[in-house]
């Protein structure tokens, strides 16, 4: 027999000390379900976190200037004057008037076709992109400049519109990460119960091993290996199914055409974290099993 084959035979022989079927039981399936939920929750948390970040980055340096003037001619003149002033302002990188056709498209669902026959005064809008830096201070300075120009000009930083939404998404993201932690705790609890059950059902064998001089660590190794393998099988299954569902949801989000939903993407770091989850699950299960069995053995002679 070659050295490698001998080692394999030795390992197999030592691992036969516990019977095969009983420890496994439903463990891999429970771990699979937990891993599936954990991967989904983690993906949701990471995706929402990334969406909030991207939203903040997109909106932090942007603002809209409204020209609120009832008379169309005066409004157009004031809008042109404002645009020139904005383009000259040091805080502004770009300033572009929103075409009235775009405005009309956006308002049509709420106000109907009649809104644009000239009876309803619709403010003129100018999209402003600020230069990099403290957006809040720049918006304040811009407000002062515009106030000096006319009292009918209003500056609305885009970040202000989406602060509640970003807060909600952040909260949902944190909730999802909290769910991941809870799932990890639940996994550890399941492993503790499984290891205790396995320890109790193999007490006779353990007693014999002890009386022959087995150390606690030798015995614990039998259990931690078995439970680690269960966790590996279950983790791989749950992870694969979780990733499949995430990809499916990604396709669905993309198909909605919504910019907001499309912002919910997983950065590569997120994929790495997801990939680390089954590994963490196996480590958690193995260490928990070891700890549980060592504790139980420590109570015997």
């Amino acid at each position, binding site marked *: *027999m070659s050295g490698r084959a*001998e080692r394999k035979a*030795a390992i197999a*022989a030592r691992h036969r*000390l516990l019977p095969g079927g009983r420890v496994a039981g439903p463990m891999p399936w429970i771990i699979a379900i937990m891993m599936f939920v954990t991967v989904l929750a983690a993906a949701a948390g990471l995706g929402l976190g990334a969406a909030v970040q991207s939203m903040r980055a997109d909106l932090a340096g942007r603002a809209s200037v409204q020209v609120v003037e009832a008379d169309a001619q005066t409004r157009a003149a004031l809008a042109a004057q404002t645009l020139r002033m904005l383009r000259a302002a040091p805080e502004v990188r770009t300033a572009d008037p929103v075409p009235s056709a775009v405005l009309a498209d956006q308002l049509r669902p709420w106000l109907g076709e009649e809104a644009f026959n000239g009876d309803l005064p619709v403010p003129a809008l100018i999209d402003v992109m600020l230069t990099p830096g403290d957006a809040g201070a720049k918006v304040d300075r811009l407000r002062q400049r515009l106030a000096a120009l006319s009292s009918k000009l209003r500056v609305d930083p885009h970040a202000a519109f989406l602060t509640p939404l970003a807060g909600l998404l952040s909260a949902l993201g944190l909730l999802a990460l909290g769910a991941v932690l809870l799932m990890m705790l639940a996994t550890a609890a399941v492993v503790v119960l499984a290891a205790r059950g396995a320890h109790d059902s193999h007490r006779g064998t353990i007693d014999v*091993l*002890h009386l*022959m001089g087995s150390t606690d660590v*030798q015995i614990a190794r039998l259990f931690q290996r078995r439970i680690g393998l269960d966790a590996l099988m279950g983790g791989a299954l749950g992870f694969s199914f979780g990733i499949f569902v995430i990809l499916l949801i990604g396709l669905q989000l993309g198909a909605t055409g919504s910019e907001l939903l499309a912002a919910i993407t997983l950065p590569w770091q997120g994929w790495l974290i997801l990939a680390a989850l089954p590994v963490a699950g196996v480590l958690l299960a193995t260490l928990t099993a070891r700890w549980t069995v060592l504790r139980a053995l*420590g109570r015997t002679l």
Partner: protein
Amino acid sequence: MSAIVQFENVGLRYGLDRETLSDVSFSLASGGFYFLTGASGAGKTSLLKLLYLAQRPSRGVIRLFGEDVVTLPRKRLPGFRRRIGVVFQDFRLVPHLSAYDNIALPLRVAGMKEDEVDAPVAEMLNWVGLGDRGDARPATLSGGEQQRVAIARAVIGRPEILVADEPTGNVDADMARRLLTLFEALNRLGTTVVVATHDLPLMAQVSGAQMMKLDKGRLADPTGTLRYPPRARADQDGGESG
């Protein structure tokens, strides 16, 4: 011969019951052959449990291999247990392991390399007359065969002390005689043998063996011997045989 086992005023109590063993004092010489006898419930199995470190006494001192094992830290017990072979009354074979793997257990526990396990296990299987039954699970073996596997498992590691609880209880007279011959062979190699049994004719067959009798948890007639030991052993053991 030096004392390999020493009990001094040992008492054992389970829970709040009366003492199962009281004021038990004796010492066993290294290389001796001892029978432990007494009526059912006299405390033989409890005394053996103390001897093979499955139990700590409620009081008193037990020295094994010259060390006090009552106060011995738990983590040091495996090292002592590997020096003791045990034949349990109920065999305690691991049911999902073959006869071969059951016999190999002590060697694997001791960390012996797998390629070194095969020869001694095969030899031991032949020694107990089960050379062709190595693959059999305990459930498929007769009581006597299980007994022999249990004995082979107990002696394969060449223990310094062999403790056997009613080892001939499930075998016919001929097999009992053969097993005893195995114990004597091991004893000649230097192993101290302690056998709990009711079988007086069996005890009579081992020359030089000494007997300890338990009566209601106390060592009765501690100086009594089944048969006077050979001169050499008597001289060396002196009053230790207790």
